[in-house]
């Protein structure tokens, strides 16, 4: 009887497990593994998180209706509702227009009327200014072309005729960007003095933001005292490295990425793979997190498929959140203006949402466009509810709407209980509402020492004021009791002395 019942029970369990299995599988089968999106906690450990972005669609040559498929596309540029793709292998630039969620090819730009030569030779980058003028970094024609929106040639930026530029070298413009006043910034191969800067009228006015030369004391001693002149000539000299890519944000600051560094320098924030350059070329990126913005915090070792994150491109959203695109593991990292990682997602592979050859990233509003040079595809990412909540809370906080922002963070915590920024946001709002003890709890959850200390000082002040009677009583007791004991002892001795000798001491 009991055995039968037991076996029946087992059979039921088995049946239930089998019935539920498709459900469990369904949760994973939408193509997103539970580790696709993640963040790092205070200890630098990976914490899985809900997806902040999901693939909306992937644009291929076919879906765009191209006769010749894209070959090794190198760069993206977004302006308004237009997306420009530099199809480097075919010497052309594709202009794609966005209408709602539909993307259609508007035109193919493959020449500039009136330029000599008119066609491009391995274009590497494109930029469009506010008037619609198009700039093309025409690598193998050694020029940056400027044309108006009807493709009429205006001007070309050539090799700087200046003693600071080694005239024996070819001018190889690789990445370009234009700021709001029409100044052109060029990142050229073989130039390590920083970005080449041209004024709006096309005159060369120097370099900005050179990488600082780095060498350590040991290198210096070795090279100065232990090598012969011939050896020294053969060795590479201490030269600054070149930037990988640049982006100009709304405020005119240049965001630059750097992929040449040693792993050791990264962890101690010497390498600075992401920089924000001001007009005199100093790095002013804010880093208020425990870890600098370097992408992944742990990796196996430097090899072709592993090693530190290498940011191929960077884009800055309108709310000053910057997003960098990592080639090593095909990942996208989002950081807030304080340098705190908001989310990281992506992986290597050849399915939707994975990348083989991450090369360029752009944004329209909050949507992200990721270009893969090997797959020749543009992946369109749109934020999920979770991702939108992060932006909303940030925006509300920047607007000064602290309490509303705290409510948004609370909503976010129901989706991801490991989100430090949410704890800090709620804590800040609680401090404003003078709920210090509760705020301390939230700051402790996020390991935020400074804010905790601030909340604690208020808490301590109130606690002391409330219990001032006790505090004074304890202090008085601590002083008075030993004093009284000492007095009593002395009197006892005097009495003894009197009894023994009959004299008052």
């Amino acid at each position, binding site marked *: 009887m009991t055995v039968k019942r037991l076996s029946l029970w087992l059979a039921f369990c088995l049946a239930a497990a089998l019935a539920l299995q498709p459900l469990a599988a369904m949760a994973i089968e939408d193509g997103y593994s539970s580790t696709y999106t993640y963040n790092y906690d205070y200890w630098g450990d990976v914490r899985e998180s809900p997806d902040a972005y999901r693939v909306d669609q992937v644009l291929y040559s076919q879906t765009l209706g191209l006769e010749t498929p894209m070959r090794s596309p190198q760069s993206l540029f977004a302006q308004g509702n237009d997306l420009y793709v530099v199809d480097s292998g075919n010497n052309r630039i594709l202009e794609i227009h966005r209408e709602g969620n539909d993307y259609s090819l508007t035109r193919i730009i493959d020449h500039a009327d009136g330029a000599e030569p008119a066609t491009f030779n391995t274009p590497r980058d494109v930029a469009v200014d506010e008037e619609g003028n198009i700039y093309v970094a025409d690598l193998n024609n050694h020029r940056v072309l400027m044309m108006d929106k009807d493709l009429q040639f205006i001007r070309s930026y050539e090799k700087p005729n200046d003693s600071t530029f080694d005239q024996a070298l070819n001018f190889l413009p690789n990445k370009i960007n234009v700021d709001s006043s029409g100044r052109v910034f060029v990142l050229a191969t073989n130039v390590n003095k920083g970005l080449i800067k041209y004024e709006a009228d096309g005159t060369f006015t120097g370099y900005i933001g050179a990488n600082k030369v780095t060498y350590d004391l040991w290198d210096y001693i070795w090279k100065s005292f232990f090598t012969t002149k011939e050896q020294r000539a053969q060795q590479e000299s201490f030269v600054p490295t070149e930037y990988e890519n640049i982006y100009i944000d709304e405020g005119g600051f240049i965001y630059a990425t750097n992929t040449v560094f040693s792993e050791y320098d990264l962890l101690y924030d010497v390498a600075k793979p992401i920089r924000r350059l001001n007009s005199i070329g100093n790095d002013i990126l804010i880093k208020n997190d425990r870890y600098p913005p370097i992408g992944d915090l742990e990796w196996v070792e430097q090899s072709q498929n592993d090693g530190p994150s290498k940011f191929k491109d960077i884009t800055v959203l309108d709310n000053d959140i910057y997003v960098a695109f990592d080639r090593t593991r095909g990942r996208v990292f989002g950081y807030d203006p304080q340098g705190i990682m908001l989310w990281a997602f992506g992986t290597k592979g050849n399915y939707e949402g994975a990348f083989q050859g991450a090369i360029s990233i752009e944004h329209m509003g909050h949507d992200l466009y990721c270009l893969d040079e090997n797959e020749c595809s543009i992946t369109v990412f749109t934020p999920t509810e979770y991702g939108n909540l992060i932006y909303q809370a940030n925006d509300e906080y920047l607007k000064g709407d602290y309490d509303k922002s705290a409510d948004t963070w609370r909503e976010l915590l129901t989706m991801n209980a490991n989100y430090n920024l949410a704890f800090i946001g709620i804590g800040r709002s609680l401090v404003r509402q003078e709920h210090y003890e509760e705020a301390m709890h939230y700051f402790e959850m996020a390991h935020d020492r400074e804010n*905790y*200390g601030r909340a604690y*000082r208020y808490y*301590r002040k109130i606690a002391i004021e409330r219990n001032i009677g006790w505090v004074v009583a304890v202090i008085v007791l601590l002083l008075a009791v030993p004093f009284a004991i000492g007095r009593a002892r002395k009197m006892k001795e005097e009495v003894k002395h009197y009894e023994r000798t009959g004299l008052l001491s």
Partner: protein
Amino acid sequence: MSVLGFSAERASSDGRRAWWKHYGETLRYATHVIFRPFDGFWDLVHEKRGSLAAAHTFLFLFLLTYVLRLMCTNFQFISAPIQYINIYERAASLLLPFLVLCLANWALSTLFDGKGRFQDIYMAMCYALVPYILIQLPLILLSHVISYDEASYYQVLQSVSIVWSLFLAFVGLMQVHDYTPGKTIIFVFATVFGALVILFLVLVFFSLLSDAFGFFVSLYREIVFRLY
């Protein structure tokens, strides 16, 4: 019989009381040592003013303080990943180097006319830990009272405790062995080197031991395999 038993009992209870009294005195002697180290360490060893029991107590308290400091200090001042900490491992990682350094110092100083026996060195080193205990234990409480802005007080006291203890260890070695300061400095470095040599020998010994053990295990397996 009963009278004898009674008196014996009383004698032993007297002895116990005397032991506790001596223990208490040797504990209290630490305050003399830490404030007047030159005098204190000399008398500690040569005038028998210290006891091994007190030394063990200080060493135990030192390990306890170290662990408590990691576990109980407010997170504003120490960020120890509590979820990963094994307190026995942490304590052992402090105790073993301590003992190995004492051993290395004894081994070397015996060769170079140091006066101290191992027991003396151990006792002096344990007494040198007292400032660390006396400062760090209250600091744990203090960390819950002060805020992050006041961290400099905390840090100063922390460094004071360490510098004081190191200074005492130095003076202790000097007095125990009756060395000059210069000779003591040389021996501090020699001791560290000696400790490394001991570590190396221990590692070699254990790897050889495990090889030998492995040989007998495989021999046994072979025999069992042949027999059945």
